[in-house]
């Protein structure tokens, strides 16, 4: 067999191995879509928390019992179209709940903190109205 044929075979084997490793980590387009959807949900939830905190910091204390004063488009999970669930837990603590399609502990950016880690299914993020809301990682695709 010629040198060119050997080179072509070696390169093909190497490329196939690298591509398989890559797909092993990336997963299928369908599972990536779920990861993206959860990311979008987390970003919308963070946006809502920021609005609640800014209302709190401009003097509307204690926290309201419901989110009537927040514009309705901010209160909706853009992926499912359902509103986020809000519970005021004390005069300056509250939680926001949503339903997630994946556990993002392993899909988050390397080195990203635990603040926005959520399991699969229903989950509530805890917030302190006096603290600033950290920006979630990886808004990609937009």
């Amino acid at each position, binding site marked *: 067999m010629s040198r*060119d044929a050997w080179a072509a075979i070696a*390169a093909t084997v190497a490329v196939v191995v690298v591509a398989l490793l890559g797909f092993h980590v990336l997963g299928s387009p369908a599972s990536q879509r779920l990861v993206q959807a959860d990311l979008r949900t987390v970003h919308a939830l963070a946006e809502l928390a920021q609005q609640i905190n800014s209302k709190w910091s401009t003097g509307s204390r204690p926290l309201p019992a419901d989110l009537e004063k927040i514009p309705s488009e901010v209160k909706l999970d853009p992926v499912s179209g359902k509103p986020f669930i809000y519970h005021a837990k004390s005069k300056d603590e509250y939680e926001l709940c949503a339903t997630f399609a994946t556990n993002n502990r392993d*899909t988050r950016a*390397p*080195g*990203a903190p635990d603040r926005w880690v959520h399991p699969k299914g229903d989950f509530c993020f805890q917030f302190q109205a006096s603290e600033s809301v950290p920006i979630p990682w*990886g808004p990609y695709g937009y």
Partner: protein
Amino acid sequence: MSKPLQEFLDAAKRQGTSDESLVSLLRGRGWPADDVYRALADHYENHSGVSVPAYKRSGSAKDAFLYLLSFAMLATWTIGAGSVMFTLIDRWLKDPISPANNYYSSGYYQIADSLACIIVAFPLYLLTMRYILREVRLHPEKLESPIRKWLTYIALLIAAGVVVGDLITFLTYFLRGELTGRFMAKTSVVLVIAGGVFWYYLGSLQKSATASRSADE
């Protein structure tokens, strides 16, 4: 073609002068080689009634297209493959002190992009190379084409630049305290890819050199 030269040639050939001595004779009187050979060709065309077949120039523009395309595809898929490996190495060998420089884009983003590069560029590269190699087999004189040599050396120059740049970057991270394992892994990925490319292309330039040498002998 100048009439007197043609008449002289006809007369000399009638005397039985050999082509070699005619050529050196005319060259000695300052006639350019092109004119002499053209006159000789005209002479034989007139006497045999068959015209000299036209020489088909090998398509230099086509060669340039093929080589540039193949090198562009080579760059795309090798960089894609390297990039997949770097992202995987970052994931496998977690370094808690490395800055979360991927904070705003998890490794997925990078991997998806690199995989797309490989999937599109690698088959195109194989197809282009297959076409080029078949052309070279059918027309071995193309091994000597300056286009091929120039583009190959320029591609090797770019590859060498990329390799040196990568190694400097990795060494910088290493000197700043990055994990030794990461440094070694990334360096070996670059060396394997670049080594393969250099081995293949330097080897094929070598092949053309030996082919022309054996043709000269």
